């Protein structure tokens, strides 16, 4: 152990020279030449076992979703799998009263999250980044919902929305017969009620991401701007916000993924009954519901997959391109 840690110390001059330019590509070659047979096997296992597990359970099942979407299957024996072409999709798009509302709700989910809690999280982060006292106390309060599970958040807000005993109706006097406002049951209200709970959590999450981004902003930029006579808003708009670009990208991706993944909250609230249908809920109800149709459920999953990939692929391509350059 001691020899191993001492050596790099003595050769510390080398790493600074090699990483720039084309040198790093050659380093692994040198590494490799020294490997024994046993090392190669060890390496193969180290990379192979996790990859197999991940690929088998995540990617092969995703591919299976695509394949099954073009079939019907009752789940009993493989011979009952029948190819039906695009029938599942045709039925989904034209003959499922829940599909288009679900798509619409997923879109609304994203739009609400990106327009309300996200800018609010940014606003909080900018305020908390001012080196004020109690900053950590405030942060803890705003971030608390992010630590709790969506399921528990669902229960908490269910209690708040309860028509009889809930906080809101009790406060506004709508908890008496004849005056009930059914926040969770009313299909015109329930999506918005759920979104309040989702936003409550999302704002804290965004605040933390932006706080981390703001920490990376060069303080001299801010000073230069204020020396130039810019006020706080001008400094933020012209100097700070543009440098937050990498954070903004992550925030956008995280928000889209959150909107596509939205599930727990709605499931706890009302199992995605009328008014709160989501694509994720439709897929799940198709499994645990009574009429389990594997091909049909897979077709909904494929729609979800396609939307996700439209977001994931460009994001990862740009991320990894940057990394390659780095």
């Amino acid at each position, binding site marked *: 152990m001691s020899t191993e840690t001492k050596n*790099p110390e003595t050769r510390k001059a080398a790493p600074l020279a090699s990483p720039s330019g084309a040198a790093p590509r050659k380093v692994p070659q040198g590494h490799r030449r020294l490997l024994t047979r046993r090392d190669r096997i060890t390496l193969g296992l180290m990379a192979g076992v996790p990859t197999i597990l991940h690929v088998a359970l995540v990617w092969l099942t995703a591919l299976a979703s695509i394949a099954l979407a073009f079939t019907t299957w009752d789940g009993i024996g493989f011979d009952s799998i029948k190819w039906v072409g695009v029938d599942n999709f045709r039925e989904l798009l034209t003959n499922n009263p829940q599909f288009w509302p679900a798509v619409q709700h997923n879109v609304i989910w994203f739009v609400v999250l990106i327009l309300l809690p996200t800018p609010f999280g940014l606003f909080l982060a900018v305020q908390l980044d001012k080196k004020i006292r109690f900053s950590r106390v405030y942060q803890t309060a705003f971030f608390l919902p992010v630590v709790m599970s969506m*399921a528990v958040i669902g229960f908490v807000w269910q209690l708040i929305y309860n028509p009889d005993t809930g906080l809101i109706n009790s406060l506004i006097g709508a908890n008496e017969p004849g005056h009930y406002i059914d926040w969770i049951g009313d299909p015109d209200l329930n999506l918005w009620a759920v979104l309040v709970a989702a936003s409550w959590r999302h704002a804290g999450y965004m605040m933390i991401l932006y706080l981390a981004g703001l920490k990376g902003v060069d303080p001299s930029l801010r000073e230069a701007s204020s020396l130039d006579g810019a006020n706080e808003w001008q400094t933020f708009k012209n100097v700070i916000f543009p440098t937050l670009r990498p954070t903004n990208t992550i925030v956008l991706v995280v928000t889209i993924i959150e909107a596509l993944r939205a599930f727990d909250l709605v499931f706890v609230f009302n199992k995605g009954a009328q008014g709160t249908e989501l694509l*994720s809920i439709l897929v799940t109800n198709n499994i645990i519901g009574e009429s389990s149709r594997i091909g049909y459920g897979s077709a909904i999953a494929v729609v979800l997959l396609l939307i996700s990939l439209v977001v994931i692929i460009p994001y990862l391509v740009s991320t990894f391109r940057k990394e390659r350059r780095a």
Partner: protein
Amino acid sequence: MSTLALRDRPIRPARVLLHLFLAGTALAWLAPLLWVFYAALRPYSETSAKGYVSWPDKLGLDNFTNAFQQSDMLHYFGNTLLIAVPAVLLTLFLSSMVAFYVSRFDFRLNLALLLVFTAGNLLPQQVIITPLYRLYLLIDLPGVTASGKLYDSALGLVLIHVAFQSGFCAFVLANYMRMLPHELTEAALVDGASVWRMYWQIVLPLCRPAMAALATLLSIWIYNDFFWAIVLISTGENMPITSALNNLSGQYFTDPNLIAAGALLTAIPTLIVYFVLQRQFVSGLTLGANKG
């Protein structure tokens, strides 16, 4: 620093206003939880007579003890422990090995492999659930799990957690390991150390801060998981606590105050971890995000 301090002093009223705003908002943010806590402290008979927005006659922890005992919560906490501990350890172990490999050895495979892992982690879980559910039903494990299948077993949940979360962890750890000087392992290799020793005795100990952050994050995520268990576990008895709450609230808890207590009890472990390891949690969350 000095210019900041100078600028702070003259605009004191603005600071006071900011504090008022932040304190008010923070309180509003905690209000839902505080109200639920307040309801949980009161007996049902009192709240049903006086209404929920009223001064208390009697406050106590009865609802908490009742919720805990009536529904045998300890059993479900145990289930969660049985799933979360192996899942966190295994995820860190496997993803650190992948990260070690891609950051130290194969630069061509590096990107492809990381791409696969990261993209997998970003997929909505529902994309893969239908075939996964079928797969779990198909895999027979007589004698290994109580159900005789991967379905309805803790093992099944551990596996999917590991497979899913290792994407994020591999990405974060690979970035972290790449910052360690290459000469560290090169020198060890020249000295004749085996690859395994390089990983276990040199690289891994240096990754302790990142591993601690990820462990905190993973524990909370896995503890909070609701979806996998709802679909992949059929026996109510086998559910981890977060998913069990869904059944418990219907079966055992009849009054809202009891549900409030049960929900808060479920949240307590995550809150403890958060308060004790806040720094780790936040740094873990931003570790992955800061790159990019």
